[in-house]
């Protein structure tokens, strides 16, 4: 089964393989299948080859001026593109300029890579003090306008473009440094690097094998962009007239063409075209490399109700009893091969007012997807292929985001799994509560504020005023979950959908949150759909249970019956897997019987 993208965390754990597009075994082969990559790399290769073959192709030197050739037409006697205003062969100058660009790119990128990668590895892998120093030095380099510095240092470089490009390489290095440092810092804290260290691998080997590998891809990508930047800067400087006038370069040719524009516009066109094509190819190649090595660019993400493909209309039946009725609900995600992959396949369930239904299953069983489908907050790419979701007799599937936002918050509310990730990090707790209250029922700001404070008090927060003014990162996980519950029950919804509301919390906090949910449910006569994988939570809080497996509900029943006499074999497997409450380990710690045989060090 496939993992739908941007799903809740546990979906990651489902069996099989997760579809990470990046880091396949043969990126080169995939690159060769990408027309953009092949085309841009091909053009670059041809251009570089032409540059290398210059002495064999051209009849004239780049600075060889001939009075007869001044502003010559293209195509006349050995001047394929004509002559410029000094009578030099434009074609020859173009090819020589290619070489200048290639040398600039080589110098600029190699210096930037050498400096950036080395210090990035050092700054990322070794301890904080060393990093403090490298960090400071590179941010210093980064803050200075590079082109200005290159010009200011003109008396020092004496206009030699190679020296200039060396300095420019240093100026480019902070970008690479940051890239590498961030990657290394990220990898360094990965458990697999810790595991390698515990395995007794020397630092050298960890850096080489585990860390350089991760850094490789992004650095290759950056190289293409660095080369483009170097060529751009070199031509910019040459355009300004920095550097020796005997070094042919696109910039100098463009400057010449620019002054001669009214007479001979083509003289401006050729070098501009050549420069444009080379930098464009580098950027396009860089983009292709990124797509292949890091996976494609993220797709836009719209806030919208899920699209629906009504293969069958909602079954026209007599109004089913109860508050929430889900019938034959199916949710699917598009696969790379344009098919649809069902993650929820025909779920039917119902809830009466004030009742708690536990939706239980292992990761990847589709329980969270079912909850999201009821709320209408599936990711934009998800498709509801069939079925019906009715709340108080009203069909919710097919409603637009606007209509749904009138129902959500008022009739139906949601408590998520990860409390921290579900609060906007840059808005105060209070403002988020007030905003929700006012979205559900138009209330004066002041009144909404009072109500929010009362809610915080109700969910067991000791100091409501302080928490009201706090930002999410100042709260503990348990407090954040209380805040989210306060927000969910703010408008007295008739149905609360709680998706693993205690999974991310400590046990003692879990017990308190379950108590709170139970009390609120009784107080507000609210129905609760409790999505969980924990049978302890089910036993604690649910009236009825539905067991899900691979997108289907295999068994529904009263909580007591289900625990005492599970009907479906899968339910029995799950219950058997629960570790026995009353049997601690009793066998004594044994001393080696097999060990000596295994000492094959």
């Amino acid at each position: 089964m496939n993992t739908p993208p941007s799903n809740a965390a546990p979906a990651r754990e489902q069996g099989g393989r997760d579809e990470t597009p990046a880091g396949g075994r043969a990126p080169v082969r995939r690159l060769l299948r990408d027309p953009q990559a092949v085309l841009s790399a091909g053009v670059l290769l041809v251009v570089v080859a032409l540059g290398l073959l210059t002495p064999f192709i051209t009849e004239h030197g780049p600075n060889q001026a001939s009075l007869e050739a001044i502003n010559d037409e293209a195509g006349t006697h050995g001047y394929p593109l004509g002559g410029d205003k000094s009578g030099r062969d434009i074609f020859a100058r173009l090819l020589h300029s290619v070489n200048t660009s290639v040398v600039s790119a080589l110098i600029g990128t190699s210096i930037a890579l050498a400096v950036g990668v080395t210090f990035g590895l050092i700054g990322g892998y070794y301890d904080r003090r060393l990093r403090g120093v490298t960090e400071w030095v590179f941010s210093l380099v980064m803050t200075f306008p590079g082109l200005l510095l290159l010009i200011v240092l003109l008396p020092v470089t004496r206009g030699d473009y190679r020296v200039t490009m060396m300095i420019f390489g240093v100026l480019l290095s902070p970008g690479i440094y940051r890239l590498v440092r961030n990657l290394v810092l990220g990898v360094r804290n990965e458990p697999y690097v810790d595991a390698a260290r515990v395995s007794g691998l020397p630092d050298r080997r960890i850096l080489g094998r585990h860390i350089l590998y991760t850094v490789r891809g992004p650095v290759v990508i950056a190289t293409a962009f660095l080369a483009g930047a170097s060529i751009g800067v070199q031509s910019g400087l040459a355009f300004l007239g920095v550097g020796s006038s005997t070094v042919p370069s696109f910039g100098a040719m463009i400057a010449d063409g620019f002054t001669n524009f009214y007479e001979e516009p083509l003289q401006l066109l050729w070098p501009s075209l050549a420069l444009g094509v080379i930098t464009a190819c580098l950027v396009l190649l860089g983009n292709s490399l990124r797509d292949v090595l890091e996976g494609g660019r993220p797709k836009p993400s719209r806030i919208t109700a899920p699209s629906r493909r009504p293969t069958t209309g909602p079954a026209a039946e007599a109004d089913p009893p109860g508050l929430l009725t889900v019938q034959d609900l199916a949710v699917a995600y598009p696969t790379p091969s344009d098919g649809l992959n069902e993650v929820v396949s025909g779920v039917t369930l119902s809830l009466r007012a004030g009742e708690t239904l536990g939706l239980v299953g292992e990761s990847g069983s589709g329980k969270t997807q079912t909850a999201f489908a009821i709320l209408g907050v599936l990711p934009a790419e998800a498709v509801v292929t069939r079925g019906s979701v009715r709340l108080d007799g009203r069909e919710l599937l097919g409603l637009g985001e606007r209509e749904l936002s009138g129902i959500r918050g008022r009739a139906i509310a949601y408590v998520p799994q990860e409390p921290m990730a579900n609060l906007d990090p840059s808005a105060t707790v209070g403002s988020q509560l007030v905003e929700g209250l006012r979205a559900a029922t138009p209330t004066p700001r002041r009144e909404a504020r009072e109500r929010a404070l009362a809610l915080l008090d109700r969910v067991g927060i000791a100091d409501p005023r302080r928490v009201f003014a706090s930002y999410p990162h100042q709260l503990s996980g348990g407090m954040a979950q209380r805040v989210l519950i306060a927000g969910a029950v703010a408008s007295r919804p008739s149905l609360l959908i709680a998706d693993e509301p205690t999974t991310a919390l400590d046990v003692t906090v879990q017990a308190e949150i379950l108590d709170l949910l139970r009390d609120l449910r009784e107080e507000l006569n609210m129905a609760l759909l409790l999505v969980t994988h924990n049978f302890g939570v089910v036993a604690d809080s649910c009236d009825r249970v539905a067991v899900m497996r691979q997108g289907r509900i295999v068994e529904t029943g009263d909580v007591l019956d289900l625990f005492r006499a599970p009907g479906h074999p899968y339910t029995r497997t799950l219950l058997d897997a629960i570790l026995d409450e009353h049997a601690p380990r009793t066998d004594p710690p044994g001393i080696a019987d097999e060990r000596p045989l295994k000492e094959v060090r």
Partner: protein
Amino acid sequence: MILHVLRRLATGLVLAVLVTMITFLLLSTSFDDIAGSVLGSSATPARIEQQKAQLGLDRPVLVQYLDWLSHAVRGDFGLSYFTSEPVRSAITARLGVTLSVVLAALLLTAVVGVTLGVLAATRGGVVDRVAQGASLFGHLVPNLLIAIGLVWLLALRLHWFPATGYTPLGEDPTRWAASITIPVLALTAAGAASLTSQVRGAMIDELRKDYVRTLRTRGIRPRAILLRHALRNAAGPALTVLSLEFVQMFGGALVIEQVFALPGFGSYAFNASLQGDIPIIMGITLFAVLLVVCVNLLVDLANGWLNPKARIR
């Protein structure tokens, strides 16, 4: 908060001292040439030594630097070797031209980049493709070529704006605006390109976060979620890009000023460097660093306002 600002300012000053010192040390390698070029090509070695002594270039480099620094602290940047113009007034006069171009371009970049980025992130389809295409174009074509293309199209073909020259704001605001329009557009093209892709990426990341889903379940309208929550959270990284953009535009302005014959900072710096006019070079270096320090400080403050975690620290 005030402590934080003071600390940043102090770091900025240290940065200014370091950069000017390094520049000075590097320049000291070419003092002979500079003394020579002040005198002209016919100077004898003895005459050059004499000139160096007169300019104070024969003293130990560090002493010279400290001398420059002690004057600079009091606002005295010396006189140009060649024109004897006071450096400070010369620079401030030209800074106005560059800043009006760069700041206008920065503003335009912010507006265009954020609008296109948000649209691309949330609309998808044609809007996304157009925005991404525009952004790609800005990346693909070097600044210089965009500038030349704009001159060709807007000035030479359509005659909407003058191709070159500058009218001070005080003289005629309309003509001032016309004279900087093409340079501003040219600078904006590249800046907006990278800002657009940055904002697009950051917005997509934000919109995929869990809190967006939770806000939806509270019945909050998509537009409010987009602008009040997602955009605010995406603005931090975008601001950082914008501050780097400023530094780059400052460099880019050098080329642009040359194309449009604007009497700005860049062309002034260029001529001073060609001649080796040390007081002007040093003055320009210092001004540029201070400007960058100020912009970074502003971005820092804005980030603190946007991001509560950064603020508490």
